[in-house]
C-alpha cells in the first residue's frame, strides 16, 4: 500500500515524445485508470513505474521517496501484462511461487501464500496445471495471483483483459474490483476501453498524445469532460459548431441560452445522447432515421434540419419508430469556448 506521485515526468524515444510533463498523484489504496487511445503514452507511463523504461526527465515518488534509480527487480510493484505472460515451462503453482521462492521464504509459507492467492482469483485446485492447459481468462487470473502474492505496494495492470472476449472481460473486471477493494491495494490500470475505465476506477487519467487531458472521478469525467478530446473520447457525444451572439448561442437555425462564463464568438456545443428529450412543440423538428434497440433503451439517430445527424437515447416508453417526426431539445449541454468549458442546464 502506497501513494504515488509523478513529478514533471517526460519520456522521449528519440524524437518521439511518448510522455510529456506527467504530473499527478495517486492516493494510498486508490484504483486509477490511465485511459487513452493507442500510442497516447499510457503504457509507457506504466512501464516507467515498473522500471522497464527509464524517464528522460522528472521523478516518480512512492510514499515520498524517489524510485527511479531502482531497478525493476527491486521495486515494490507487481505487473500484470497485456499478453499472457505465464512461464510456459512452469506449473501454475511454480508460476505464482517463483517470486516468493526468490525471497527465500520457508516452503510451508510459500505453499500457504500461493494457495491463498489462487483461491482469491478463483483457481483453487488448478495449481498442478501448465499454462497451456488453461483458458485465456484463467491464465490472466494466474497472472493476477502472481502479482498479488508478493503483496506489492502498487499493482500495475497493462490492458490485462483486452485479449479476452466481452463476457469474460466484464466478469474479470468485476472480480478484480472486488479483490482490489478487499485488499485495499493501490492499483494503476491501463486501458483504451472507456467502459472499463468508467466502471473500475476511483479516478481516471485521460491521456492524449503523451499528456494527461483530465484527471478526475469517472462521474466528473463523464458529465463534464474538460476538453473536446475527452468529450469525444468518453462515451458518445454530439458536437456542433455554434456562434456566441447577443447573449445566445446560435447553432444551425436554432438558439440555445448561454451564461456569463462563455467567452469568444466561436464555440463548440457538446450534447450527450441521453440528455436529449422529446419536446412539446417549441423544440428542434427532428425526423427519426434509425432506431436501435439496446435492451433497456432505444438509441435513435435523428435528422435535424440545419444541424445534420444527432444521436439521442430515449426510454422504451417513448415508442419511437423509424420515420416518426417530432420535436426534440437538450436538457443539458456543454459549451467549449476559448477559456474552458461551461455546463448549462435548461
Amino acid at each position, binding site marked *: 500500500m502506497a501513494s504515488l506521485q509523478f513529478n514533471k515526468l517526460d519520456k522521449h524515444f528519440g524524437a518521439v515524445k511518448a510522455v510529456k510533463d506527467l504530473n499527478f498523484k495517486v492516493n494510498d489504496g486508490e484504483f486509477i485508470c490511465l485511459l487513452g487511445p493507442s500510442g497516447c503514452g499510457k503504457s509507457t507511463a506504466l512501464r516507467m513505474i515498473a522500471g*522497464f523504461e527509464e524517464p528522460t526527465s522528472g521523478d516518480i515518488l512512492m510514499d515520498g521517496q524517489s524510485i527511479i534509480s531502482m531497478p*525493476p*527487480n527491486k521495486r515494490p510493484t*507487481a505487473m500484470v501484462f497485456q499478453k499472457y*505472460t505465464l*512461464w510456459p*515451462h512452469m506449473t501454475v503453482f511454480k508460476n505464482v511461487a*517463483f*517470486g516468493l521462492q526468490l525471497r527465500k521464504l520457508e516452503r510451508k509459507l510459500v505453499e500457504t501464500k500461493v494457495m491463498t492467492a489462487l483461491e482469491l482469483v478463483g483457481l483453487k485446485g488448478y495449481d498442478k496445471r501448465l499454462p497451456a492447459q488453461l483458458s485465456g481468462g484463467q491464465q490472466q487470473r494466474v497472472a493476477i495471483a502472481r502479482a498479488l502474492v508478493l503483496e506489492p505496494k502498487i499493482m500495475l495492470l497493462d490492458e490485462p483483459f483486452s485479449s479476452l472476449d466481452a463476457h469474460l472481460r466484464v466478469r474479470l473486471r468485476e472480480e478484480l474490483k472486488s479483490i482490489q477493494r478487499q485488499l485495499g491495494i493501490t492499483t494503476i490500470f491501463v486501458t483504451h476501453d472507456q467502459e472499463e475505465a468508467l466502471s473500475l476506477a476511483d479516478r481516471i487519467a485521460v491521456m492524449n498524445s503523451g499528456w494527461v487531458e483530465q484527471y478526475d472521478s469517472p462521474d466528473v469525467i463523464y458529465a463534464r469532460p474538460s476538453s473536446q478530446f475527452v468529450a469525444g473520447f468518453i462515451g458518445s457525444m454530439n458536437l456542433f459548431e455554434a456562434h456566441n451572439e447577443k447573449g445566445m448561442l446560435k447553432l444551425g437555425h436554432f438558439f440555445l441560452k448561454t451564461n456569463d462564463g462563455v467567452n469568444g464568438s466561436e464555440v463548440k456545443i457538446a450534447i450527450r445522447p441521453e440528455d436529449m428529450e422529446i419536446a412539446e412543440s417549441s423544440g428542434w423538428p427532428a425526423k427519426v432515421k434509425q432506431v436501435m434497440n439496446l435492451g433497456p433503451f432505444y438509441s435513435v439517430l435523428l435528422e435535424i434540419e440545419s444541424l445534420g445527424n444527432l444521436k439521442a437515447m430515449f426510454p422504451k416508453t417513448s415508442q419511437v419508430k423509424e420515420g416518426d417526426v417530432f420535436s426534440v431539445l437538450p436538457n443539458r449541454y456543454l459549451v467549449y469556448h476559448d477559456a474552458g468549458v461551461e455546463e448549462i442546464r435548461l
Partner: protein
Amino acid sequence: MSFLRKLGKDPFGIFIFIALFLFIIGPMISVILWAFSVQWRYPSLLPTQWGLKFWSQTFKRADILQALPLSLFLSLIVTLISAVICLPAAYAFARLKFRGSQFFLLSFLATNAFPRFGLYITIAVIFLKLNLVSTVLGVVLIQLVNTLLFMIWIPTAAFKGVDKSLEEAALDVGASRFRVFWQITLPQVIPAISAALMLTFVGTFYETQGAILIGLPGVRTMPVLMLSLINNQLVVQYGAILSLTLWIPSLLMLFFARRALSGKSLAAGFGV
C-alpha cells in the same frame, strides 16, 4: 494403407516413389549386403558367401582404431567450442540492438554461400605458416568455421522467439538478470539449441573438405579414412562396413531429434 491407396491413384506419385526407392534405398541395401558378405562374385544377385569376417578385420585395422575415437573427440570438442562462442553471440544478436547486427548475422552465411574450397585453400596457406597443418588444433579451427552458421542462426531465431514480456514478468517479481536468463529464457530455447548442437556434432563428424586439406597426413578422421579406403582398396567390404558404422551418429541424432524436438521447433529455429 491409406498412403499406398493414395499412391495407387497417382501415376506421378508412383514414379517418384520408385525413383526415390532406386536412388536412396537401393544403394543403402547394396551397402548393407556388401557389409555382410564374404564373397560376392558377378553375376549372382546376392552375395555368394555371407559372414562377419570382414567386420573383425575392419575393426582390427590400426588406422580405423585410431580414426574412430579421434573423430568422436573432434566432433565433441568442435561442438563444445562452437557452443561457447556462438550461444552468447546468438543471445546478443537476438536481444541487443547494435550497429550492423543484420550485416554480421548475414556474414555467417558467406561461409556456406560460396564454394568452401577456395576459402579453405587460403586458410591452409595461413595455417601452413603457423604450423597448424596436420595438427588436431588446425582441424578443430577449420571445422569451427563450418559450424558457425547453424550454431548462430538457429539459437538467434530461438532467442528472438522468446517473448520479452516473459523476461520482464520475471524481472518484475524480483529475479536478477542472470536468473531470468537461466530460469526463464534458456528453458524456452532448449529444443532449438539441442537441434543446433546435434546438427553441429553430426555435421562435424562427417566433414571431409577441411579435414582433408588441413588434417592430412597427420590427422585422419573417419570419413577421410573411408574415402581413401574406397578409393585405394580392392576390398569393397571395408568401405561398406565403415559406411554403415558412420550411419550410427545420424541414426542416433534422428532418434533423439524425434524425441527431443518437433519439426516445429526446428522450423522456429530457422525463423520459419
